[in-house]
């Protein structure tokens, strides 16, 4: 009986447990780099530096780059 009363409170008030760094690291490294590459293509490719030649990436995301606050031409 006491348990059925205690159960909901332990669920709602306990702060989430720690996740071990070892479990996060592989995801953080792989997806972190992937996400940063995405941001690079949205924010800087064919502006200050170019991985691909031409102007198409820059022209395509032109408005987004201005409105997201990245320096653009």
């Amino acid at each position, binding site marked *: 009986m006491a348990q059925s009363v205690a159960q909901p409170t332990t669920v709602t008030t306990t702060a989430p447990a720690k996740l071990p*760094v070892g479990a996060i690291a592989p995801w*953080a490294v792989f*997806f972190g780099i992937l*996400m940063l590459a995405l*941001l690079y293509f949205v*924010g800087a490719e064919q502006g200050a530096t170019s991985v691909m030649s031409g102007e*198409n990436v820059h022209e395509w*995301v032109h408005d987004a780059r201005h*409105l997201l606050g990245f320096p653009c031409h």
Partner: protein
Amino acid sequence: MNSATVRNLLVRGMLAGLAAGLLALVTAYFLGEPRVDSAIAYEEAHSHEHGVEAVSRTMQSTGGLATGVLLYGVAFGGIAALAYCFALGRIGRFGPRAGALLLAAAGLIAVYVVPFLKYPANPPSVGDPDTIGRRTTLYFLMMLLSVLLAIATVILGKRLAPRLGNWNATVAAGAFFVLAVGLAYAFLPAVNEVPKDFSATLLWQFRLSALAVQLTLWTAFGLVFGPLAERVLTPKPAERAAVAAPSAVSR
């Protein structure tokens, strides 16, 4: 199990980022695009070179804008979810939803507001094409510095908490952040390349709409990601019973 939790949170962070990106796209289209068009009209009235357009204005303001804003949302959603995994249980006793909203607020300030106050968003025709390399370097440097200082602030606050108590430690760490950002502002070079006769009203409206886009993005991310994370982190009724039963026996 833990790795699966990280994966589940990461996937939900990217989905929440996509949803937030959709809302930010609405803000960008209705508040931002009219200002971009006005700035381009100014640009065309003042320059005599008319290059061949690789992408039409219609595509830039719809498909192009959507691509950029949605990718930005997904990317920061993923990064924020990974930061959330690190922060869980390490920073304070916040529930999953409050934690997500706090993280979103910290993200907005560290990733956008702090760099924006030094190097604000500029509409087309503001900015010399010859200085794009320098401006890009300075902007990304300011962003990186701001994020690193925000992380340092959290670590400092946590270190001070046992000695000063939570409230005073938070105030002290916040003061450190403001001071450090102020020093960075003072020492980094200024960039002011607004043409003399460019409309001040248009510049103000453009920058305000750029800020509104980010406010929409991060607020929506915090509000969408919180409940999703809560469902990942809250054990299902069956598991809860399984966890509760052994503890009852040991007691």
